[in-house]
């Protein structure tokens, strides 16, 4: 029995490790390539370890690589992305929270229909929205600005955030609300005093989710931005995806890693809370 137990433990650890290799492989390729010199990349195997580590490609990608006529590296676009992500995540999460609160605790005639309508939005291929959205943004004077991008991300993120919060709040017992009502607490008081303090797990999940989605978005970024508002994914694309000139793969890979760094950091640092938040009820229903 003990022998067999040991054998199975080994199988379990073995499988987990093989899976880990599969998940890490692309990151490994990107990391090693980014610290190789171009000569080494041309000569060698792309899976081989770097012989001579150099960070020249990283500094080039950050501050001097050309992404058009401007040769400023990814730096300005990185800050554009930050300026876009913070308000977009905040607004869409806040709206999602109150929507979820209403849809679970203050239902009224037709609120289920509203929920279904908002939810259906999750499934819409966003390419459909590009041109009419462009027209609307132009009408409101928000075209090609960070404000416009924030607006688009809020509209498109509403469905997911509402879904997350609603499903989480459904799990909070109605009795709590009733008791608070008896004490004379109103709509907002209950929300801020009772519901919100209980929402940390789902807030974490939603913020991480929205942050990743918005930071990684390329489609809206490329269509609704101009030079002053261009997010980092578009900068990365301009840097790496050029049509007719010499490729510098180490710079491309370094740039890709820079673009991915914030989201990777969030997952490494907050991944634990993400899983915990899911455990706390985001997956119900």
């Amino acid at each position, binding site marked *: 029995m003990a022998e067999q137990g040991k054998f199975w433990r080994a199988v379990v650890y073995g499988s987990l490790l093989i899976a880990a290799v599969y998940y890490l492989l692309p990151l490994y390729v990107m990391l090693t390539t980014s610290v190789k010199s171009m000569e080494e990349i041309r000569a060698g195997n792309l899976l081989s370890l770097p012989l001579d580590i150099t960070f020249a490609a990283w500094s080039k990608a950050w501050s001097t690589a050309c992404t058009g006529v401007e040769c400023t590296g990814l730096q300005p676009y990185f800050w554009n992305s930050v300026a876009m992500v913070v308000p977009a995540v905040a607004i869409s999460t806040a709206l999602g929270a109150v929507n979820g609160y209403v849809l679970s605790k203050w239902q009224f005639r037709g609120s289920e229909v509203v929920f279904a*309508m908002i939810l259906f939005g999750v499934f819409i291929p966003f390419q459909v929205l590009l041109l009419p959205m462009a027209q609307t943004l132009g009408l409101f004077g928000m075209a090609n600005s960070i404000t416009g991008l924030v607006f688009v991300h809020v509209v498109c993120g509403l469905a997911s955030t509402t879904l997350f919060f609603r499903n989480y709040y459904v799990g909070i017992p109605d009795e709590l609300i009733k008791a608070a009502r008896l004490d004379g607490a109103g709509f907002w008081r209950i929300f801020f005093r009772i519901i919100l303090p209980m929402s940390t797990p789902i807030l974490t999940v939603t913020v991480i989710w929205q942050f990743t989605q918005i930071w990684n978005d390329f489609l809206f970024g490329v269509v609704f931005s101009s030079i002053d508002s261009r997010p980092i*994914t578009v900068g990365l694309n301009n840097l790496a995806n050029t049509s007719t000139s010499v490729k510098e793969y180490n710079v491309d890979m370094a740039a890709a890693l820079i673009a991915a760094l914030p989201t990777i950091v969030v997952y490494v640092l907050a991944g634990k809370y993400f899983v915990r938040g899911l455990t706390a009820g985001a997956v119900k229903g």
Partner: protein
Amino acid sequence: MSNTNGTAHYGFAERWLPRVVLAPSFLLSLVFIYGFIAWNGYLSFTASRMLPNYEWVGLAQYEALFASERWWVAVQNLGLFAVLFIAGAMGVGIFLAILLDQKIRAEGALRTIYLYPLALSFIVTGTAWKWMLNPGLGLEKLMHDWGFTSFTFDWLVNPDYSIYTVVIAAMWQSSGFVMALFLAGLRGIDDSIIKAAQIDGASLPRIYWRIVLPALRPVFFSTLMILSHIAIKSFDLVMALTGGGPGFSSDLPATFMYQMAFTRGQMGLGAASSMMMLATVAALVVPYLYSELRSKRRG
């Protein structure tokens, strides 16, 4: 729910506040989602080329769409991709979740490793994937260098198999998320049930199969929802990995629509294809939503 009996106690503000709070989101989705869908639907009946125009052509765009070989390849691919991707990601995710649930050392690190692909877009990882799957550069070359010369892995460049490489990369991105969802579900299950079954002499696989997994039904359904929406919207993935190629063998409806509407100046055709996509989504999702909401009301 309780609100029907409760209304008597509500003041005027309390009765209208929820509606007012919900109104902005409702209006936003009404105008920006449904309004735009309607506009798009209208476009699909027009002769729009480079830019939208309003010259009515009836069903001509739909006829052109149904006559297009490329469209049917895209539809077939989506079916194949969705089934394999959902089944694959679900299988791998559940498997890893169960393994991780066995009181594993370094669980936190492994979990992060499985989860991090979700943090990356294919704009970032596309090139690395392309390299690894390319027979001349990646895995096949590595195996050949190691002496396994009969090893072949050329799916990326084979029109009959290119769609499967898209599945592999998509699974890489999403199976960790499935793992997290199911692990969360597993942690929510009372240990005493498992212990009781163990005392009764049931083997571990049997316990999982018969007791634990059935208890995770709700997790299963929400995961299915999430995965199917990822499948239908898959776009970056194909663009980065195969560009729809070789030829158009790995095209999906989303990439088809983008190409027609934006690159080729066949906006009407693109609009028609997106309406077909929406109709498919609606056919799948509306019944689910309906049953979901009904069961909630009963519960």
